[in-house]
């Protein structure tokens, strides 16, 4: 079994990740995935790229716990999270959340749940580079609201 959580400076191959997630499990009938990418348009105008910082050790532990919670809540067979750190250019992939299940409903739901959870509870910070200099991205209360739909209080933004 491959790791459930990877924090890496390197890019990832979504197709290869999905293939690995369901490999050898004939019970899988659905795969759902989400990929977040670097937008060229930031909060303060157009950006040239970004830097992603995290809290090594805590990040992996926090996301592992989120996957445990997703396995408890939804009828899913496997889940995988890959998150980039370091310097990223516009258009690059930042994060992959992938879920395998027997039927699509649980895969869609668990994928969204994991992404909502990660947004407000995993210790990552984005810094955008713009023509005016670098600035730390502000947390959005909309992300707290997204997690609240699952009955979890985010207390982030």
């Amino acid at each position, binding site marked *: 079994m491959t790791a459930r959580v990877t924090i890496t400076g390197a890019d990832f191959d979504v197709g290869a990740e999905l293939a690995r997630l369901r490999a050898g499990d004939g019970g899988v009938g659905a795969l759902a995935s989400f990929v*977040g990418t670097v937008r060229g348009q930031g909060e303060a105008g157009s950006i040239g790229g970004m830097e*992603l*910082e*995290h*809290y090594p*050790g*805590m990040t992996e*532990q*926090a996301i592992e716990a989120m996957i445990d919670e997703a396995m408890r809540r939804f009828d899913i067979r496997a889940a995988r999270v890959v*998150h980039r750190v370091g310097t990223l250019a516009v258009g690059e992939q*930042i*994060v992959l959340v992938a879920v395998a299940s027997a039927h699509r409903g649980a895969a869609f739901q668990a994928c969204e749940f994991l*992404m909502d959870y*990660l*947004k*407000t*509870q*995993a*210790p*990552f*910070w*984005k*810094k955008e580079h713009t023509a005016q200099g670098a600035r*730390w*991205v*502000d*947390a959005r209360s909309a*992300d707290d609201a997204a997690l609240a739909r699952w009955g979890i209080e985010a*207390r*982030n*933004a």
Partner: protein
Amino acid sequence: MKLQVRYFASLREALGPAETVEIAAPATVAALRDRLVARGGRHAEVLARGRVLRCALDRAMVDEAAELADGAEVAFFPPVTGG
């Protein structure tokens, strides 16, 4: 008791990545924050009560009422913005 205090993102830029802090037991994360603010200077500025910060104790998110133990790792950081 002796604590390892870590900072991330904008706090790391202002205060450095980590420092060792001694504080009398018992104490909470809130007491530690107040103690750091009382030093003045950049600590007072970036850890000020008016600023929305999050904290972790031994690598798990906690609220500031959490009790500290000798040797604990406490981290202060801005709201998270990954994903």
